[in-house]
């Protein structure tokens, strides 16, 4: 792959610049570069952004802008990819949100950004999301993982509600469910039958990867 195009792709992400990212992606397509290589460059760059955030060197809007730039570039590169390449390029799709009754979304946002940075395709449902909406959207976008966040002790039961509803609808086997948030413990995750628990955003990413690799 041309090092100039690779550098342009990488720099666009590191400078949080969607327009430059699009230009570099268009150039990569025009030059018939291997799209998988281009995706690898982008993934490495967004991973670097995630690390900078983890080291508290940058702030949340920078991660959002980097993720936007990444998505803009990926949209263009995807158009030149085969079905097989498309399948390989994605780690998996995650539907994420803060559960019903809970408006605290900082933790959820950080997890979401770290998942994007790791190469996941993430659909953010926002906060105060009820079980029906989690399931409807997960089905609609063909998600592999449903990630449930909460901060309040009194909203913990709504995490369980999503899993119970999946069971009732006989959809439990279709999705992996991971949980996290201030009052959430491994014990709670286990007691409600969640597949994974992330203590923080870093661990959440590792758990998500593990869940997908375990099928």
């Amino acid at each position, binding site marked *: 792959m041309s090092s100039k195009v690779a550098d342009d792709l990488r720099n666009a992400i590191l400078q949080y610049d969607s327009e430059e990212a699009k230009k570099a992606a268009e150039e990569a397509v025009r030059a018939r570069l291997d799209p998988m290589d281009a995706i690898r460059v982008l993934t490495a760059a967004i991973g670097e952004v995630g690390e900078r955030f983890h080291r508290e060197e940058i702030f949340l809007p920078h991660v959002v802008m980097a993720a936007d730039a990444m998505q803009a570039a990926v949209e263009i590169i995807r158009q030149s990819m085969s079905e097989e390449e498309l399948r390989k390029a994605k780690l998996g799709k995650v539907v994420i949100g803060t559960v019903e*009754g809970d408006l605290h979304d900082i933790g959820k946002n950080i997890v979401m950004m770290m998942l994007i940075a790791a190469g996941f395709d993430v659909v953010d449902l926002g906060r105060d999301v009820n079980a029906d909406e989690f399931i409807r959207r997960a089905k609609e976008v063909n998600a592999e993982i449903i990630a449930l966040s909460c901060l309040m002790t009194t909203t913990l039961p*709504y995490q369980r509600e999503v899993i119970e509803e999946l069971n009732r609808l006989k959809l439990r086997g279709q999705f992996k469910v991971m949980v996290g948030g201030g009052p959430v413990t491994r014990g709670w995750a286990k007691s409600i039958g969640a597949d994974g628990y992330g203590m*923080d955003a870093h661990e959440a990413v590792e758990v998500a990867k593990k869940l997908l690799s375990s099928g």
Partner: protein
Amino acid sequence: MLLDLLEVAHRAWTGPRMEEKEWQMGLFRNVQELVKRYNLKAPDPNDRSQIICRDNAMIDAVWQAGIDFLVEKGIYCFDTRRVIEFTEEEVKETIRGIPKTFIIGEGKDAVAVKNMHIDGGEGVAIACGGFHSPYREDLAQLAPKAFMMIPGVDYMQGFTLKVIDGREVHGTAMACYAARRQVEWMRQGAGKAGRPGMAICYYPMSLEAAPMIAPLDPRNGLRPCDGSFLTPLPNLMVEAGLITAAVVYNEYGLSFIINGNGHGEQDSFAGSREGYMVTGVAKTIAGWMVYRDNITNISPNITQQALDRHCNMVRVHGVRTPDDIPRTYEIGTERYLLHYANYAISCAIFGSGMEPSGGGHLEGQSPYEIEFMCECAEAARGLKLDDGLELMRNIRKMADEECPAPPVSPDRTGMGHRVVFSGWDGSLPTMRDVYDLVKMEPSESYKMEMVKARRLVKAAGLNID
């Protein structure tokens, strides 16, 4: 004239529509532009010489940038997806309406609350006795009396419950019921403590309007002399349910409403430490304009200085310094007590309110350290700012030598302040391990830790006897 809350509500349901992400990124851009416009520089939090900003022009610029934000952008109601806009005149007039003094509690237990000055001498603005953390039901009924008997405590905040009457607190109905019991138990506690008029502050069981309003009940619940929490969300966002509660509280005449104001610098869309100073001002003023919050929490020191110079807002939580002793999970230790000593001194010299928080940790504080905190705050009254800062430095230095922070267990490490461990799984010590609420006394081992903590604080220069 104060902007009417009904007008705020009207705008929340009729203002310009906007998607949340557009608001957040717009906030980021606007705040960064304000940082440039006013050439704002954030003090280095690790530089002791910059704990307090001595540059009044910079402090005033931080204030003006926060006001400009509210005038240029307004605030965002996330569930109606509308922007609540303000004119400059409305912002200024409403700020002038922040009361200089207000009374909380009633009868002999009433307390006058006012903004204290940052340069030390006056002591703490107000002392909360604690809670602000999850409780199990049995303790929730026992604890209020013990905390409310502590001399120096002006009011109590509530707690959350996972289970009540043997049932999980799940759904609006149970949240309303639990909200009413929380407040009722605090009222009973105040009576048992011989301070029936002491003010109490409802701590939200849920953020829906119904459980926020449910405890209003002069006989067994919140009286007009009591308070509640209504906190704007990070990134200058408010919510329809809390606007609803604010309208009802205002009409009921609730004495005080606390702006929890908690959000991390890095996690917000302010985008820099300078930006966080700006949103700190804007969020505090927005809390007053939309919810009538007359007590405000956590902000950078310079933001607190800006509030102090330009309005009557009562601030909570003192200064942030490199000599703060972070609260550990190890309740019942000398270091745990010393955290409260330094916190009390910080609040006293900065004229802040004390609001010891369980921080989401299950039953994470006992009356013993709250009593010590109040005693230290009283002893620090009259200290000038620089003397107080030096005292805090001494205590921190001696604490690090005598009782260094325990190594953090690998299962409790996470991404800094963003990770909270509740201890619901029994992994953390709680008040039960170190304090007997029936006898109202600490364990023998905790008493020994107190002896050490008191000796250290005295050796560092604080006159407690």
